[in-house]
């Protein structure tokens, strides 16, 4: 048997071994892992809540005429190809940080808050799922989840914005 034949033989053995390992698993309909369900449900309901707030903000924008920036001005500017600096110049320049929080009573402020809430949902979902993984003894994946969660926290606090060169 030459070297080439040995390689093929070894590869075939590997394939048989993998097939056996897969076959050894039970064929019952599997139960969805708890860590996944906790993650999915947390995000799901926060996103739905965010969507509802966004819709209410949109109604407020159109009906109450209470906006940080006029929606028709913003949409006109966007379709004219104006950039972010030009659009925000109407209110004195591009805001830094979470501008919508002090403007929650305005239509666009509330709309932005709904969007941000939907995005934020990922962070508690990751940490809740990490907790379940740790409790199940899956420390590697629990730790990976915590790292991912910490990165999203850094991003939402605006720390990462400071990395943009001037």
């Amino acid at each position: 048997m030459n070297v080439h034949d040995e390689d093929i033989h070894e590869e075939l053995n590997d394939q048989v071994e993998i097939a056996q390992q897969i076959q050894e698993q039970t064929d019952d309909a599997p139960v969805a892992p708890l860590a996944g369900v906790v993650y999915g449900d947390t995000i799901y309901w926060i996103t739905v809540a965010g969507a509802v707030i966004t819709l209410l903000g949109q109604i407020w924008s159109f009906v109450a005429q209470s906006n940080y920036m006029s929606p028709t001005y913003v949409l006109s500017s966007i379709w004219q190809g104006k950039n972010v600096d030009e659009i925000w110049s109407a209110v004195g320049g591009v805001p830094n940080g979470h501008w919508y929080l002090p403007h929650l009573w305005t239509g666009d402020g509330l709309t932005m808050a709904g969007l941000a809430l939907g995005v934020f949902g990922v962070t508690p979902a990751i940490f809740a799922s990490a907790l379940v993984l740790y409790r199940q003894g899956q420390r590697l994946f629990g730790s990976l989840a915590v790292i991912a969660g910490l990165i999203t926290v850094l991003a939402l606090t605006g720390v990462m914005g400071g990395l943009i060169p001037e």
Partner: protein
Amino acid sequence: MASLLKRVPELTFLIVLTIVAYGIMGSFNELAGTEILSPTGAWGIIVGSFVLSTIIAIVAVVGGVGGGVLFTPVMLGFTSVDTLLIRSTGLVVAMFSGLVSSGPFMRKGLADIRIVFYCAIPIVVGGVAGSLTAIYMADAMGANGDAIVRLLLGVILVFIALMFILGGSNTEYPVPKKLDKLSELMNLKSSYYEESLGKTVHYRVVRPLLGFALFGVVGFTGGFFGLGGGWAVVPVMNLVMAVPLKISAASSGVLLAMGNAAAIWPYIVGGSLIAVFAAPWMIGQVIGGILGAHILARVKAAFVRNILIVLLLLTSLKLISRGIETLTGIDIPLL
């Protein structure tokens, strides 16, 4: 559809609320018009964006590619909207269908949370780095930067379309040829109930190190172009890590939503995400995402994938021509 609305009351609630909301906005519109846009025109843009977003979300979730793959290139290719705004809104389109579909996917066991967390780190880090670079480039390079972005994105889209074509239809339930030491150590194996076959499918992840590195590149590209990264997650999981196609598509949606949730904060904090423009896209993604997640459990993704290939190739043509036009001043008569 009727049974789905019964089984998922929150979906019914959202659809009814959206119809009522847009009805009220249309009927009691108090906005002041501008020179180029009437109040009714503004309402039309909002409703049109919502409808388009819902359709994109359904296609994106079933295909596991993320809506940004469709939204960003089409907007860059066919409108004069600022690239930074398109990319920030592209992330909204890319992530919200993935966020909301996480619930149904996890409950059905279609998405694997351990795979998601393993791939999340490089995607998240790459995504944030990509979006920071995009914001820096927009400030530093102006119109030429715009053209370069369009040109590069066009080339990337051709590459993505080729991956979908070459990946073919024989990848639904891959069986790994060899187990490396790391994959044995991590023991990333699981199973799920395949509704379309009526039986349980078992799988095992291989080549985790190569997958990890590739996801870093995917994250950066997704954050930079506002594509969301979903375009390459399915091929990497399926073709490189031997994850079944349906698990890849579902996990991809969950994963890209997680990555984009980090990537989008620099845009939000920096004022580059405009609420009135992004909101209808978000609502469409949420409703379309829930619908798509329930459809995915029943259908094969091959049909949607073929549609995507055609769309990607057409859009890449337009993007490349617009990029060359701006850089060289030569007019290319396309569409």
